[in-house]
């Protein structure tokens, strides 16, 4: 790069920015370092974030629960459930066996389980057998409470005679009342319709298909794009191969990875569509106006540097870049080209040998004002404790600063060298004449609006009245994530196995110790079961049946001995001829505590221990997950009435947060623009400030009007589009207001900027995610209006009279 400028006659204002070539080289260094940072982060893989929850501030609850919820959800996120269904049970088994083998071989699969081996099947009995005297099934507990031990004794007797009960000598000797059997039956009976068939967890559906369950755990966070894509690609290949090998196979999936995968694919498509769309738009416009690729090269250089540095800054300050930041970052293209276009149009309009330093001096006030207002507005966003907003603000501010810097420090030198190559379309050319007429009408139109006392008030009145009357507000976070229908259907099938494991609506039980947590869980369950009986949900899973509190174990031990063993063993002994030592052993059985640690360490807790969380110093937690939860309010009420129990619904809580922050951001924007207005008044006077503010305000109102007319709701994301419209609108007005050279060049710059921005946001409006589409709609209406109104600001800085 050559020295930017050596013109000895440069004015002092310009000196500030190009005293030497140092800033230019410094900028180059910054861009190169940023490029290195970005390349290094990308090569590590975990640079993009697609989890919608990462956009949100920590939810307002105690840090312990927060940590517990995060830990549990990250655990649940790694689980994958697959259901392999076939009309022919034998084929289903063969297919499932092959699937298990294939999955185990995939890199990224941490563990996979299909056919349970004998040790797993006996693990339950092995763990619980020594504690059987204190583990009555709920029915036995109820009988004992009513002093009806005899009924249980008679059932036990009948079972011994039955040829189907498979009662053996050993069991009769150790457990003549069949407590262990009854306990295991009850505890394991929570997944309706599931049975173990030849080691497979299997279920028959209404269409006669036999479904077998295969579960696996991923060795990576499913939201990391590279790992998730690699694994899902291999999984899909495996699934195709399996379906080809077993015609008629129904393979259903449940797991965060599939949803995350769909989100990633959509994000990528949208980013590339939007990016491509605006890139093509920029190329076409630059070629049409300048008839040269050199300005295009300059614009692209600006954009590339802006985006690379924005990415690097975001990565360094905030870690992984969210997919939303990228989507909105792609629209940064439309913002930062402002500066480039402003410079190029101004430069282009001058004669080929005019010094570029002069161009810069002419547009510098406009560029600076624009930069200051944009940065102010984005900094206001940065103050919101909303990670997504902050990231987008940081991304935009750093991108804008770099785009500004490239124009100031690189363009004069680069364009001076190349200027001779461009062919100016002066006022004399045919196209120049057409363009000039168009601009003249545009200026005349806005002058007329300013002149006619009623025109502006009517327009603004309309733009304010429509959204004020017709705009609906909807803060439901679910419109941010539109899940593919096919996945939702599959999830329904698979969730018949184990209830919804997505963990979006759960109960979180906390205790200082495991004992306290278990007691609280036990105290809450009767009320919860009443909700279930009234149809509030179809089923739930909790650790409670598997690991009772010590208090309960002790009470049960006593009740079993005094209510069953002591009074009713003689009946059994007499009818069956059981020898006396059996009785002596039963009555002498001491209480031995079944410790949670033993349960957690046993293979018997597989599939359940993920509901348990030891999180010092916050305490011990467990979650209750639901299947077919239809009355969340009733469940929440149970939680509220129970000590140490919290109901958590990520989606509902986030919607509340969305509402809170929509409110807050409204005020932040109002505050920021009030400040900007003060700043503008200092420079342009009250009347001038008003004319500068009119295009952005009119644009914002027009965007909301369009949203209202389309029947779409306002939420915090579409509000963010309003922020962008305000930022761009004020740029246009400032460029017009500060226009000191030919107005035609400024109009051209504003038109080009607006057109490229419209191109990119027009594509956003096509997004399949409703919230992003709404964003696009607001931006589309807003920028169009701000652009049309921009000439109103012309001349506020006391520039020459309008001479298009």
């Amino acid at each position, binding site marked *: 790069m050559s020295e930017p400028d050596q013109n000895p006659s440069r004015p002092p204002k310009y000196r500030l920015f190009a005293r030497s070539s140092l800033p230019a080289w410094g900028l180059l260094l910054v861009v190169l370092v940023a490029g290195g940072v970005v390349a290094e982060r990308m090569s590590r893989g975990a640079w993009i974030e697609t989890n919608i929850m990462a956009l949100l501030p920590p939810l307002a609850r105690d840090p312990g629960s927060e940590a517990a919820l995060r830990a549990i959800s990250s655990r649940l996120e790694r689980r994958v459930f697959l259901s392999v269904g076939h009309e022919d049970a034998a084929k289903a088994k063969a297919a499932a066996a092959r699937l298990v083998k294939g999955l185990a071989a995939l890199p990224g699969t941490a563990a996979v389980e299909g056919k349970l081996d004998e040790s797993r099947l006996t693990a339950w009995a092995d763990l619980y057998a020594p504690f059987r005297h204190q583990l009555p099934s709920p029915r036995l507990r109820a009988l004992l409470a009513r002093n009806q031990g005899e009924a249980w004794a*008679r059932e036990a007797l009948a079972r011994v005679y039955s040829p189907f009960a498979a009662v053996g000598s050993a069991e009769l000797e150790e457990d003549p009342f069949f407590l262990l059997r009854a306990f295991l039956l009850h505890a394991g009976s929570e997944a309706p319709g599931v049975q173990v068939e030849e080691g497979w967890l299997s279920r028959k559906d209404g269409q006669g298909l036999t479904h077998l369950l295969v579960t696996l755990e991923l060795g990576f966070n499913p939201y990391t794009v590279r790992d998730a894509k690699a694994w899902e690609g291999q999984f899909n290949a495996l699934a195709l191969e399996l379906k080809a090998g077993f015609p008629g196979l129904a393979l259903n999936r449940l797991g965060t990875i599939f949803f995350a995968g769909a989100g990633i694919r959509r994000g990528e498509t949208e980013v590339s569509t939007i990016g491509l769309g605006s890139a093509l738009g920029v190329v076409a416009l630059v070629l049409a106006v300048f008839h040269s690729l050199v300005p295009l090269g300059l614009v692209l250089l600006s954009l590339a540097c802006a985006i690379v540095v924005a990415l690097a800054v975001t990565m360094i300050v905030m870690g992984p870049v969210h997919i939303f930041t990228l989507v909105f970052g792609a629209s940064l293209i439309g913002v930062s080209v402002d500066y480039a276009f402003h410079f190029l149009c101004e430069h282009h309009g001058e004669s080929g040998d005019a010094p570029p330093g002069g161009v810069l001096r002419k547009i510098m006030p406009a560029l600076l004002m624009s930069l200051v207002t944009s940065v102010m507005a984005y900094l206001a966003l940065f103050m919101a404790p909303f990670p997504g907003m902050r990231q987008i603000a940081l991304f935009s501010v750093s991108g804008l600063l770099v785009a500004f810097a490239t124009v100031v420090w690189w363009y004069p030198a680069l364009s001076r060298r190349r200027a001779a190559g461009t062919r100016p379309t002066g006022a004399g050319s045919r196209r120049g004449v057409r363009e000039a007429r168009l601009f003249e009408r545009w200026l005349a139109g806005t002058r007329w609006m300013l002149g006619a006392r009623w025109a502006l008030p009517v327009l603004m009145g309309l733009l304010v009245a429509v959204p004020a009357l017709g705009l609906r507000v909807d803060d439901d976070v679910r419109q941010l994530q539109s899940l593919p229908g096919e996945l939702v259907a599959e999830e329904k099938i698979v969730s018949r196995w184990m209830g919804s494991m997505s963990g979006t609506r759960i109960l979180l039980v906390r205790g200082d110790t495991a004992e306290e947590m278990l007691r609280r869980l036990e105290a809450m369950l009767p009320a919860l079961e009443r909700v279930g009986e009234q149809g509030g949900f179809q089923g739930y899973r909790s650790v409670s049946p598997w690991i009772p509190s010590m208090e309960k174990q002790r009470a049960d031990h006593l009740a079993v001995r005094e209510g069953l063993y002591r009074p009713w063993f003689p009946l059994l002994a007499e009818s069956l001829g059981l020898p006396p030592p059996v009785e002596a052993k039963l009555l002498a059985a001491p209480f031995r505590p079944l410790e949670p640690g033993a349960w957690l360490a046993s293979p018997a807790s597989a599939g359940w221990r993920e509901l348990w969380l030891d999180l010092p110093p916050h305490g011990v937690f467990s979650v209750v997950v639901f299947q077919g939860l239809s009355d969340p309010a009733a469940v929440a009420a149970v939680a509220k009435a129970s000590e140490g129990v919290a109901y958590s619904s990520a989606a509902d809580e986030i919607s509340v947060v969305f509402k809170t922050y929509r409110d807050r951001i409204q005020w932040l924007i109002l505050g920021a623009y009030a400040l900007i207005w003060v700043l503008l008044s200092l420079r342009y006077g009250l009347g001038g400030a008003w004319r500068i503010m009119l295009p952005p305000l009119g644009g914002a109102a027009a965007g909301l009007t369009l949203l209202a007319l389309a029947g779409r709701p306002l939420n915090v994301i579409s509000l963010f589009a309003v922020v962008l419209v305000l930022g761009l609108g004020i740029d246009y007005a400032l460029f017009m207001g500060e226009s000191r050279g030919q107005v035609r060049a400024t109009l051209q710059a504003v038109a080009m900027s607006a057109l490229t921005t419209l191109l990119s946001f027009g594509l956003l409006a096509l997004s399949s995610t409703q919230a992003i589409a709404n964003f696009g709609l607001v931006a589309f209406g807003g920028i169009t209006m701000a652009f049309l109104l921009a000439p109103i600001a012309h001349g506020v800085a006391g520039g020459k009279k309008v001479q298009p």
Partner: protein
Amino acid sequence: MLAGSPMAAPPRAGAAPTLESTLSGLEGVGVFNAQFESTRTLKVLRRPLLSGGSLLLAKEHGLIWTQTFPFRQKLTIMAEVMRQEIQGGETIEISAKDNPLVFVISRVFIAMFSGDRETLNRHFSMSFQSLPIKSLEGQGWEWSLEPITSPINRAIARIRIQGRETISALDILATNGDRTRIALTHVRARSEPLTPSEVQAFRP
């Protein structure tokens, strides 16, 4: 006794019964009635447990096992649910999902009485021999089933079925050495559907 039933079409005169011919004979049976006498010999008990009653097996419905001695209990086993009624006690319903083992055993039971090859082949390796003794009631045979699938193979070592025209006795040998012998008398097999009163018996 067996006139009119498909089981009354025994192998051609002189031909020894085979597993194939026995299964084919059982296959045609729709409804099976018998009286049973069960003797359970458990090592831990000082004396064998004797019980008796009747059984009704209908391919389309399931099995009713009515024990009348030494106390009354009725087990009604259907495809997805089992009902246990005990003299003087409450009726308990158990669904297949709750107690898979009971259902596997009773399904095997039903499969044996109805010659369900698919189920039997899946769970057992089978052998068959015709006994040298001939009597007026036809040639005797012994059919032996060894379980090959879990969980049955953990509980049962072998099942021996004896019969002539039809099944006359079952010997169930548990893996731990316990034995259950079920002797059947007054066996009536027929292809006709259940009578209304029999259907009623399957209802709670």
